[in-house]
């Protein structure tokens, strides 16, 4: 198991390198730059700025510098938030985003699995139809619609919950952004679970379990759900990545000081280093979650156990 994890982490290095390289050059080939403002800067000022940030050097030189700095954990200064390095910005925002994201992931996973299982066990019933319709809405309605609607209903009209901000970080403040962030993923989990549960309930070993008089709870939970969880677990990694990127919108709506807004602002402002920092962050997230998925998979299914 340990050697498996180490092997996987080692193979993450080339992956990260490729991701960094591609995004570095893509970003540079996009038109515009960090100092192209609506009102153009005087040429001398522009030249000074470019020199300060070494943007006047050949591209491959900049690339090598970036890579060698990044290896030591130095992702450079942000061009827009001039008083901060990229590492500082991400370091400040990340705890908020991680807390919000992990709550949302838990909510999406537990809610989705429960809803999907119920729908599968009552296949083609009114309940099934209802759950699947709601989850279609969950997938199709974007969270910049869900967020304001939730705020309107629960914060403005009913005044049950605060409308935004991190506040004191208590659950009260987190509920609405968490729901807005989780809903699309919850819907996907529900659909996945429903499908794989229906399939699992039709397998031969479920017939065996029933033929041996095992109580329905054991048949469903012990035997069917464990098998049905395999495809659900594989979706954890893409879901985690989607939550991280989805936080851009939700954190803005609910004014939460997380890292989400940097994804958008960095790209719009051509803040090269900030974009690179967020790209690396997302890549690490996806790699780590994929590893977690593989480990979970091994725990759930003895046929793919890693030794």
């Amino acid at each position: 198991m340990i050697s498996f994890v180490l092997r996987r982490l080692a193979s993450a290095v080339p992956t990260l390198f490729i991701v960094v390289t591609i995004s570095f050059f893509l970003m540079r080939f996009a038109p515009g730059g960090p100092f192209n403002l609506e009102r153009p800067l005087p040429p001398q000022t522009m030249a000074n700025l470019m020199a300060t940030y070494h943007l006047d050097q050949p591209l491959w030189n900049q690339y090598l510098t970036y890579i060698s700095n990044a290896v030591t954990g130095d992702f450079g200064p942000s061009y827009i938030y001039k008083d901060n390095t990229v590492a500082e910005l991400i370091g400040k925002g990340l705890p908020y985003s991680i807390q919000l994201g992990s709550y949302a992931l838990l909510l999406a996973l537990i809610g989705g699995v429960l809803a999907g299982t119920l729908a599968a066990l009552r296949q083609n019933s009114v309940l099934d139809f209802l759950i699947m319709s709601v989850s279609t809405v969950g997938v199709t309605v974007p969270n910049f619609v869900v967020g304001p609607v939730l705020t309107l209903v629960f914060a403005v009209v009913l005044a049950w919950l605060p409308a935004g901000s991190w506040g004191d970080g208590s659950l009260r403040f987190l509920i609405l952004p968490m729901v807005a962030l989780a809903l699309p993923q919850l819907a996907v989990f529900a659909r996945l679970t429903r499908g794989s549960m229906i399939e699992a309930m039709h397998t031969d070993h479920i017939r065996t379990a029933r033929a041996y008089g095992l109580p329905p709870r054991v048949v469903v939970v012990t035997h069917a759900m464990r098998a049905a969880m395999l495809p659900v677990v594989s979706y954890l990694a893409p879901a985690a990545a989607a939550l991280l990127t989805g936080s851009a919108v939700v954190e803005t709506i609910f004014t939460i000081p997380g890292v989400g807004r940097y994804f958008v602002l960095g790209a719009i402002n051509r803040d090269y280093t900030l974009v690179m920092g967020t790209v690396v962050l997302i890549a690490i997230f996806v790699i780590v979650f994929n590893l977690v998925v593989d480990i979970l998979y091994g725990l759930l299914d003895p046929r793919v156990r890693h030794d």
Partner: protein
Amino acid sequence: MTDSRETILAVRKLKVSFSTPDGTVEAVKGIDLDVKAGETLAVVGESGSGKSQTMMGIMGLLAGNGTVTGSAKYRGQELVGLPLKALNNVRGEKITMIFQEPMTSLDPLYTIGRQIAEPIVHHRGGTFKQARTRVLELLELVGIPEPKRRIDSYPHELSGGQRQRVMIAMALANDPDILIADEPTTALDVTIQAQILDLLNSLQAKFGMAVVLITHDLGIVRHFASRVAVMRRGEVVETGATTDIFERPQADYTKMLLAAEPRGRKEPPAATAPIVLEGANVAVDYATGGGLFGGSAGVFRAVDGVSIRLREGQTIGVVGESGSGKSTLGRALLRLIPSSGRYRFGATNISDFSRSAMRPLRRQLQLVFQDPYGSLSPRQTVGEIITEGLYVHEPQLSRAERDKRAIEALKEVGLDPAARNRYPHEFSGGQRQRIAIARAIILKPKVVILDEPTSALDRSVQGQVIDLLRALQKAYGLSYIFISHDLSVIKAMSDYVVVMKNGRIVEEGDTDAIFEAPRESYTQTLMSAAFTA
């Protein structure tokens, strides 16, 4: 003698129906059946006879669209319509089941020890830990070697035969009154089949439970059952003691079933008949595992130095259990897979022929597969399927000529020529296999390799396909290599037999010699396993 026994399961007017988009389908049409204490009742029938669905209906295991009506009383207790909770006190405790496919019938995610313990814990109480001693006892009882080590194995770590033993251990766990075995050996090799049946037999003698054996295999019935119920199209056509059914069958269908056992034998060709296909020292390797992070790569030798000579008009039967390399040998002889060895087709040395060099020869070297469902494209009409080869090998033919050839080929295999405008799914298994044969013979081949062509078919249909193959051989002087695990079919089809095991030839010789006086102990085991009846 059996009549004096008490009836413990009385089935009366039992009906099973399924609601489908095309309306209600009656799978079981009001049957009566008695199971007496301690007896072995065989329920025999071909696919679709309703033999399995009868038992599923009684046990409350029908698919979601199935309904069961009528009566099935177990020691006076009505099972049909019994609430789930009460039914669960009978299932797995008084009446237990084993199924056809032991791989899929066991949960792949739990150890076998835990799965055997489950019915004990749920019916008798206690913890899984407490049940462990009993599980070890059961594993010992069903002949799993090293139970202490095996108890924590997962199903995929066991062989097919061992898995079925695990199922049997599960079935015995609570000392059942009735054990229903639904085609318990169909998915297993013959030698394993015999072991499993012997095990069931000895356990029955020891514990005295009744066994309901659902099967299509008359050999098994004759050997193991005391009474037989013959089913056809959802009805019981005949019931009686096994000896009566086999010696004095009453119903026409029973007579037909008995007569459908493959019979006859094939005369060998003249010793001077020319050799049409020869493979010398054939070897095939498969790579196993390997890859960048997957550990060391290995090589598995599927066929290991086999030599075979096929004469004109000859049928060589290749027998072996799964994994013996017999199908791989067939493909190697046709030069369809990378292999080493020397090959001759007629007078031509084809050892070094490339794919494109082989192409012109392909029309004379045809292959018919086991699965008549998977080997016909569902999106082509039968006419398109069987004439496809003509486009390649006789491109000069006009549309009308091709159609004429299709009609001839279909007539030849005993199908209505109108079939060429229909699609494969409209045909039964036996008809599909005829279509596959038509596709092979339309090219007027010299050699046809038949890879388990009758294994997916019911016995009565098997007989017809064998008759057809023999007639075609006689008419066109075809040479066959007939690959099968089914010895009775091999005996009826071939004049020369090759017995394979682990990629090598164990024994070969004229059919009579192999069947009547096998020299090697493996062949002897194979024979005694197959002809226990």
